[in-house]
């Protein structure tokens, strides 16, 4: 479905990643494969370093740290926050919502709406869409959108399918009303719940509560070991889904916005791995320099946080004084896929800090 938003803008993006860094080379011995095969995988997929939480750090810890950084540095005023949205698939608790927990930690004003959204790879887009909808309200002038996941805690260290790419982190995006009446943001979003099991953590919810049985490691056909408490991904299904659905979605977005592909400065896409992004760039017909694919090798794939990480890492400095037309796209768990054409300019901040 096509969506259109008027008079809204992004005014700042902060990404927070755990200081703890692990390298692919150090973890190779965990996998049931030869060193040569693992190195080939590393080169093709762009695996190298990734940031993951230590101990039992939670999404609310990283979000609170990032919000306090903005408050302490005068980049955000506590009383101006009218809505606090958190998009996560690794909440602190089933109840209450983690955004409420963060609200309490920061002691924010009570005249505010807090909301958790369960979305992953397309979570940045879904979060933006929800934030723009809230900004239509007269009493809402500033929305703080947080994306955050610590899914490394749910991935088996013996799963070569998912472990080498998973990263943790959170991002904070500030959204405000734009007085310029000409600014239009175009978006589209689609869903296919038939493939809800393509990316899933089978146990731990109400359908299949965690038990000794769900915690038992089992070997799959490719020699990976994981339990039902772990995240599991059908890589082939996800690959085929992305290559089939994403290019026509981008075509359709550009047609809807009546914009040529050449007029777009950057394609800031979700970062599953380098291989998939290069295939996607080839299919859509844009150069790799316009569609950065370097987040997995430097930070890991942190689900809905990967797009803001990609923006901050690659053009963060430039966005403080420049104006870019950017195409965003997120695709994965759900399955959900969404894209957006948005002008981003003169941000108050756009950087990555360590937790």
């Amino acid at each position, binding site marked *: 479905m096509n969506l259109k938003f008027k008079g809204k803008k992004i005014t700042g993006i902060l990404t927070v990643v755990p200081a703890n860094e692990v390298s692919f080379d150090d973890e190779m011995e965990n996998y049931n494969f030869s060193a040569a*095969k693992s190195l080939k995988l590393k080169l093709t997929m762009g695996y190298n370093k990734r940031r993951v939480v230590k101990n039992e750090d939670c999404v609310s810890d990283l979000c609170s740290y990032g919000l306090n950084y903005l408050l302490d540095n005068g980049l955000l005023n506590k009383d101006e926050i009218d809505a606090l949205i958190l998009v996560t698939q690794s909440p602190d608790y089933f109840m209450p919502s983690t955004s409420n927990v963060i609200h309490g930690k920061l002691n924010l004003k009570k005249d505010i709406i807090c909301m958790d959204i369960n979305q992953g790879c397309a979570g940045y887009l879904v979060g933006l869409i929800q934030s723009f909808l809230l900004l239509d309200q007269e009493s809402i002038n500033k929305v703080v959108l947080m994306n955050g996941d610590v899914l490394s805690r749910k991935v088996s260290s013996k799963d*070569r*399918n998912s472990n080498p790419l998973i990263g943790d982190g959170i991002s904070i995006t500030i959204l405000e009303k734009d007085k310029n009446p000409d600014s239009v943001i175009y978006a589209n979003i689609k869903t296919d719940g038939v493939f809800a099991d393509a990316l899933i953590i089978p146990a731990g919810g109400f359908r299949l509560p965690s038990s000794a049985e769900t915690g038992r490691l089992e070997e799959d056909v490719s020699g990976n070991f994981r339990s039902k408490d772990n995240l599991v991904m059908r*890589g082939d299904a996800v*690959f*085929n889904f992305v290559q089939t659905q994403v290019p026509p979605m981008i075509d359709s977005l550009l047609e809807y916005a009546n914009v040529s592909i050449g007029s777009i400065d950057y394609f800031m896409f979700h970062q599953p791995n380098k291989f998939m992004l290069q*295939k996607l760039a080839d*299919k859509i017909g844009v150069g790799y320099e316009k569609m950065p694919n370097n987040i997995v090798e430097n930070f890991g794939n942190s689900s809905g946080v990967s797009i803001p990480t990609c923006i901050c890492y690659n053009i963060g400095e430039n966005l403080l004084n420049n104006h870019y037309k950017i195409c965003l796209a997120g695709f994965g768990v759900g399955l959900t896929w969404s894209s957006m054409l948005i002008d981003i300019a003169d941000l108050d901040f756009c950087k990555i800090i360590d937790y």
Partner: protein
Amino acid sequence: MDNFYEKMAELLEVDKVEDSEVLKDFEAWDSLTSLSIIAMADSDYNIKIYTEDLLKLETIGELKSLIDSKAKK
């Protein structure tokens, strides 16, 4: 399907491949190779192959038949 054999040889890291050769017997055969075949099927032949399709196959020749049959549809 002109350069199917050349591409398979490249993916399997050998000089040439023949129909009778068994996929699992190649030193380079692993889940990354199967993903590369899935990607090749998508980009070169515009067809979808899944890991479970590949697991049912024995030989290079069977893979070629699978791609041929899907590409015709």
